[in-house]
C-alpha cells in the first residue's frame, strides 16, 4: 500500500477530476439525439424514393426536433465555459487536433445543414407558416434538392454522433474515455436514441414500426459495443483496467456507477423485448391500425431507450473523471 499525502492540490483535479459535469452530459445527449434523428430521417427520406416528397410531411418534424435539440444542447457547453464571452476566439482558428475546435466549427455546420434540410422537406401547404417571403422562397428553391440535402444530413448526423464520442476519447489522460470503441458506442447509441425519438414523434404506423424495427438492430449493436467497450478496457493495462472498476464496484462510493450499468442492461433489453413483441404482433396480422396499447408500448420502449442513452452518457462522463492515467 502507498501512503500518499500531497500538499498543494487543486479541487478540480484531486482526488479525482471534477472538470466536466451535467452540462456536458446534456450537450452530449442532445447532440447525440440530434445526430441520430438526422441520420434516421434522412434514411427515411432516401428509403422511400417512390413517394413524392410532398407525402413526407411527417419528415419535417424530425429534422425540426433534431435542430431544436442541438440548438438547445449546444448552449449547454457554452454554459460550462469559464469565459463564454471569449468564445469568438474559437472562430479565429481551426485546430485539427482539438475536438473543441471541431465542435466549434462542426456544430454550426450541422445546424446549417439541418436548417437547409428543414426548408427542403417542409410540405408545400405549410410553407406559408414560414411567413417571411425570403424563407418561403428558400424553401421553394431547396425542395427539389431534397435528396442531396438528405444525403448531406446523413453525413452530418454521422459526423455529429462520432464527434460526441471523440470529444471524450481524445483525452489520453483519461483511460475510460481514451479508446476507439467509445466513438462507435456513442454513435450507435445516438442512432438508437434518434430512432427512438422518431418512434415517439411519428404519427404514421408504418413509420413508427419501421423505426421500431431499425432500433432493434441498433439496440443489439449498442449492447454488443458496450460489452466490447468494457472488455477492451478490462484486457488493457492497469490504468485502463482500473477505469472500469467503478462500474463493477459494490462500495457505496461508486455504487451509483454499478447501478447505472445495471440500469442500462435492464432498460435496453427490456426495450428490446417490447420491440420484439411488437414485431411479432405486427407479423401475426396487422390491420392498418395500432391499438392505443400498442402505441403506448412502442412509445414506452422508445422512452426506455432514451433514458438508457442518457444514463450511459452521464455514467461515462462522470466515471471517466474518477480514474487517472497516473497513480493518483
Amino acid at each position, binding site marked *: 500500500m502507498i501512503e500518499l499525502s500531497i500538499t498543494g492540490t487543486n479541487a478540480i483535479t484531486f482526488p479525482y*477530476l471534477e472538470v466536466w459535469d451535467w452540462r456536458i452530459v446534456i450537450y452530449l445527449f442532445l447532440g447525440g439525439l440530434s445526430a441520430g434523428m438526422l441520420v434516421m430521417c434522412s434514411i427515411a427520406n432516401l428509403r422511400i424514393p417512390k413517394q413524392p416528397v410532398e407525402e413526407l410531411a411527417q419528415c419535417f418534424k424530425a429534422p425540426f426536433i433534431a435542430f431544436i435539440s442541438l440548438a438547445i444542447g449546444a448552449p449547454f457547453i457554452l454554459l460550462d465555459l469559464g469565459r*463564454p464571452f471569449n468564445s469568438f*476566439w474559437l472562430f479565429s482558428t481551426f485546430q485539427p487536433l482539438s475536438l473543441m475546435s471541431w465542435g466549434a466549427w462542426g456544430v454550426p455546420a450541422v445546424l446549417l445543414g439541418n436548417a437547409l434540410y428543414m426548408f427542403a422537406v417542409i410540405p408545400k401547404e405549410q410553407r406559408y407558416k414560414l411567413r417571411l417571403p425570403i424563407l418561403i422562397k428558400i424553401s421553394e428553391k431547396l425542395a427539389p434538392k431534397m435528396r442531396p440535402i438528405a444525403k448531406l444530413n446523413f453525413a452530418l448526423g454521422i459526423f455529429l454522433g462520432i464527434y460526441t464520442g471523440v470529444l471524450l476519447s481524445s483525452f489520453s489522460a483519461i483511460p475510460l474515455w481514451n479508446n476507439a470503441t467509445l466513438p462507435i458506442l456513442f454513435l450507435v447509441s445516438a442512432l438508437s436514441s434518434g430512432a427512438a425519438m422518431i418512434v415517439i414523434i411519428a404519427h404514421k404506423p408504418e413509420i413508427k414500426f419501421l423505426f421500431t424495427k431499425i432500433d432493434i438492430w441498433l439496440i443489439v449493436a449498442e449492447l454488443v459495443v458496450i460489452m466490447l467497450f468494457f472488455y477492451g478496457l478490462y484486457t488493457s493495462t492497469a490504468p485502463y483496467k482500473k477505469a472500469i472498476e467503478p462500474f463493477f464496484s459494490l462500495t457505496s462510493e461508486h455504487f451509483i456507477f454499478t447501478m447505472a450499468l445495471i440500469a442500462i442492461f435492464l432498460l435496453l433489453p427490456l426495450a428490446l423485448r417490447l420491440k420484439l413483441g411488437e414485431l411479432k404482433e405486427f407479423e401475426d396480422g396487422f390491420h392498418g391500425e395500432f391499438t392505443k396499447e400498442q402505441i403506448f408500448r412502442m412509445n414506452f420502449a422508445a422512452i426506455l431507450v432514451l433514458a438508457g442513452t442518457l444514463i450511459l452518457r452521464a455514467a461515462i462522463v462522470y466515471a471517466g473523471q474518477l480514474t487517472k492515467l497516473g497513480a493518483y
Partner: protein
Amino acid sequence: MPRYVMVIDVERCIGCMACVITCKKENDVPAEHYRTRVVEEVRGEFPHLRMELRSELCNHCENAPCIDACPTRASYRAKDGTVQIDKIKCIGCKACILACPYDARYSHPKGYADKCTFCEHRIKEGKKPACVETCLGKSRIFGDLDEPNSEVAELLKKYDASVRLEFAGTKPRVFYIKKKFAGGM
C-alpha cells in the same frame, strides 16, 4: 533558442513546502489553488518503510496534450519551448485540464485555465523561477539544456533521469533524478 528544463533531485527535497507558497505569492495564484505541489509517497510496513518526496508542476511537455486540446491556441508553445497560456484567448472550456495527465492545470476563478509558467516573467529578467530560488534543499534546479555547461545539462549527463508517466509519450521537460537509494531501517 533556449530549452528550459527543471531537474528535481528527489533526495534533496526535505518537504518544507516553501515552493508551494512562494509560487502562489509570486504569481498571485488565488486562494486554494496551486501551480505546484509536493507529493510524499510512503511504501512498506512498519518498521520497513521507504519514502519519496518530490515536487510536481507543469512538465512543459515537448508533446503537450494540452496544446493539442486547445481550440483557440490559448495554450501554446512559447519561443523558449515552454508551454504557456494566453489568458485573453482562453475561453475556459477546460479541455486542457482534462488533457493533462499530470493534473498541472486548474481553472482560475476568473474563468481561464492556469498553470505553472516556469516563472516566464522572471526568466526574462534572468532570474530563476521563484520555486527554484527559494528551494531550501536545492532540490529544484532550473536551466537551459542547450547550454552544455549548465547545471541541468551536467546533472542529466551524470544521472539517470526519469519523467512522470513516461509511457504517456508527452516528453516532459521536468526530470527527476535519484542519486542514491534511501530507505528506512
